[in-house]
C-alpha cells in the first residue's frame, strides 16, 4: 500500500473514530453517561446487518437505510427506560451499568454468532479505486467513508446549532434543572439525543464492518479509540474530536506502514504522550481546573 493511501486510510479512520465518538460525546455531554458499551453497540449494528440482509452476498450499503433508524428508535427507548433510571443514581452507576451491558452484549453476540469474524460485503466497491497519478491509488470505499463521516458530523453540528430541538439539547447539557423549569421536556429531549447517538454509532459500526472484519470483541478496540479521540481533541468540541480521530488514525496507519504489527500500539502511545503533555486536549471547549 502506498503512503498516500495510508494517509487516506488514516483520515478515514479518523472520520470513523469521530463518527463513533460523536455519539459518545452526545451521551456524555447531554446525559452525563460514559457509555462503555458504545463500541459493542457499533458491532451490534454490523451484526444486525448480517442477520437481516437477505444473503451473505447482499450489498451491505442497503443496511445503511434500515439499521440506523432502528438504532435511533432503540436509543430513544433505552434512554427513556434504563438509562434515565441509572442517570438518577449517579455517574458511578452509569459507568458500571454500561460496563455490565458491554459484557452482556459481547457474550450474547458470541453466543448468537460464534466468536468468528464476519465482514459486510459491499460488492465490487471494496476493490474500486481511482488513480490521480500513476503510483497513487485511492480507494473509493475509504474515501466514501471519510466523506460520509464528515457530512454526518456537519449535519449533527448544524442540527445542534440551528434547530429548536438542537438548542434544547444544548440547554439540557448545560443544566438539566433549569431546562425543565423553562419548559423543556427533558426526558423527551434526552431521548432524542440518545437516538442521534445510537444512529451515529450504527453508521460507524456498519462502516467499520465494511472496510474490515469484525467479531463480538471488536467493540473494545473501537471504544478505546473513540474515547482517545475525544480526549486528544478536547472535551466538548466536536471538531476537536474529528482532529483527535485523525491524529489517531494517522498514527495507526503510518505506524503500520513502518511495521504492520505496531499500528495499534503507536496510536495508543501517541494518545498517552498527548495525555502526559496536554491533558486538556488540542482544542478544548473548556479547560479543566
Amino acid at each position, binding site marked *: 500500500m502506498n503512503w498516500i493511501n495510508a494517509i487516506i486510510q488514516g483520515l478515514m479512520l479518523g472520520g470513523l473514530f469521530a463518527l463513533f465518538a460523536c455519539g459518545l460525546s452526545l451521551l456524555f455531554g447531554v446525559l452525563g453517561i460514559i457509555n462503555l458499551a458504545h463500541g459493542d453497540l457499533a458491532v451490534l449494528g454490523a451484526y444486525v446487518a448480517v442477520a437481516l440482509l437477505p444473503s451473505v452476498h447482499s450489498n451491505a450499503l442497503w443496511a445503511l437505510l434500515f439499521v440506523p433508524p432502528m438504532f435511533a428508535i432503540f436509543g430513544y427507548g433505552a434512554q427513556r427506560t434504563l438509562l434515565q433510571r441509572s442517570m438518577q443514581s449517579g*455517574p458511578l452507576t452509569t459507568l458500571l451499568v454500561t460496563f455490565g451491558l458491554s459484557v452482556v452484549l459481547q457474550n450474547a453476540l458470541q453466543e448468537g454468532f460464534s466468536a468468528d469474524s464476519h465482514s459486510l460485503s459491499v460488492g465490487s466497491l471494496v476493490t474500486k479505486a481511482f488513480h490521480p497519478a500513476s503510483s497513487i491509488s485511492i480507494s473509493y470505499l475509504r474515501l466514501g467513508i471519510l466523506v460520509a463521516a464528515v457530512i454526518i458530523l456537519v449535519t449533527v453540528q448544524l442540527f445542534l446549532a440551528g434547530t429548536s430541538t438542537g438548542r434544547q439539547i444544548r440547554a439540557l447539557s448545560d443544566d438539566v434543572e433549569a431546562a425543565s423549569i423553562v419548559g423543556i421536556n427533558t426526558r423527551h429531549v434526552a431521548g432524542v439525543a440518545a437516538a442521534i447517538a445510537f444512529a451515529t454509532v450504527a453508521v460507524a459500526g456498519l462502516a467499520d464492518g465494511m472496510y474490515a472484519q469484525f467479531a463480538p470483541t471488536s467493540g*473494545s478496540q473501537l471504544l478505546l479509540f473513540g474515547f482517545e479521540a475525544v480526549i486528544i481533541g478536547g472535551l466538548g468540541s466536536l471538531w476537536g474530536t474529528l482532529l483527535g480521530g485523525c491524529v489517531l488514525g494517522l498514527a495507526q496507519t503510518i505506524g503500520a506502514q513502518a511495521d504492520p504489527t505496531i499500528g495499534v500500539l503507536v496510536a495508543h502511545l501517541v494518545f*498517552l504522550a498527548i495525555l502526559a503533555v496536554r491533558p486538556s486536549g488540542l482544542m478544548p471547549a473548556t479547560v479543566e481546573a
Partner: protein
Amino acid sequence: MAEQVELDKRAAATAPARGPRILRSTRASRWAIGPGVVALAVLGYLPYLVDPNSTTTLVNFFILLVLGMTWNLLAGYAGLVSVGQQAYIGIGAYATLWFAQHGVEPFVALPIAAVFCAVVAFPLSWLVFRLRGGYFAIGTWVVAEVLALLTIRDSSLGGGTGTNVPGLDGFDPVVLGAITYWAALAVAVLTLAGCYIVLRSRVGLALTAVRDDETAARAVGVLVPRAKRIVYLVAALGAGAAGALLAISQLNVQPNNVYGVQWSAYMIFVVLIGGIGTLEGPIIGTIVFFVLQQTLSDQGAWYLIILGSVAVVMAVWARRGLWGLLDRWGLRLFPVGYRVLGARSGRL
C-alpha cells in the same frame, strides 16, 4: 482577681463530668472475632482435608477475592473507577515468569513481583490521574492495553501465545498444589488485613471524606491526591500478587489471559454484587460469583451474560449490594468506622 476565681468555679461546675467516648468496634465485630479465627484455622488446614482439585479451585477463589477487595478500595473508597487493573495482573504474572526464567524460586518471586507492580504504578498514577471519571476508566484500560502490546513483543516472554513458568517442575504436584494454596491464602489474608489497616488509618478517614465530597475534603485540608495515590499503589500491589499467583497456579502465562479486560469485569461484578464501599461486600460478592461460575461453567458465555445482567440490575436497584441489604442495622464485621458514645443530644 476574686471575680476571675468566681468565673472559673462557675465554669467548672457546669462542665460535664465525663466527655463523650469514641469507640471503634461494634458489638457485631467483637462477636465475629471468634468465628473468624476458627474459619482461618479451618482454611489453613484444608489441604489435608480435601482433594487437590478443590484446593486449585480455592486458589482461584482467593485470587478473585484479592482483586475484588483491592478494586473495592479503589472504586468504593477512593472513587477511582478503574477498568485497567489487569495491567498489574499482567505485570505481576510476567514479572514472576521473568524471575523464574532467571533462576528465582517463583514463590520467592511473588512478593518481589507485587512490589514491582507498585513501583511501576507510581509513575503511571501521575499519568492516569490527569483524567477524571469515565475518562480515567478508559485511561487505565489504555495503559493495560499498551502494556499488553509491549509485552507481546518480547518473544522470550512467550510473545503472543504465552509460555510456561519454569522452576516448579521439581515439586510433587500435590505438594505444589498445597503450597500454592497456602500462598494464595496468605495473600488473601494479608490483603484483607492491609485493606482493613488502610481504612482504619488516617488515610481511610481521608478516603471516606473524599468519597462523600472531594471538594469539601480538599477544603478541610485532606491531601486528596496523596490519599488516592496510596490507594492506587496498594491496589497495584494486590493485583500484582494476584497475577503472580495466577502464573504459579496455572504454570503458564498467556497475554490474553492475564492482561484481559475480563478480569476487570470479574472485579466489578464481585464488588457490585457484594456491596461497594464495605469490606464485607467483596467477600460475599466473591462467594456468590464463584458459586454462579461453578454452577454455570458448562453454559459457555451464559454465565457472564447472567452475571453481567445481575450486576447491572444491582447497580441500579440495589446499589449497596447484598451486604448493603443486610446492612440495614449498621452491621459491621470489620470495624472501620467511628461511633460516638455518651454525647449529649440536642443543639450545641
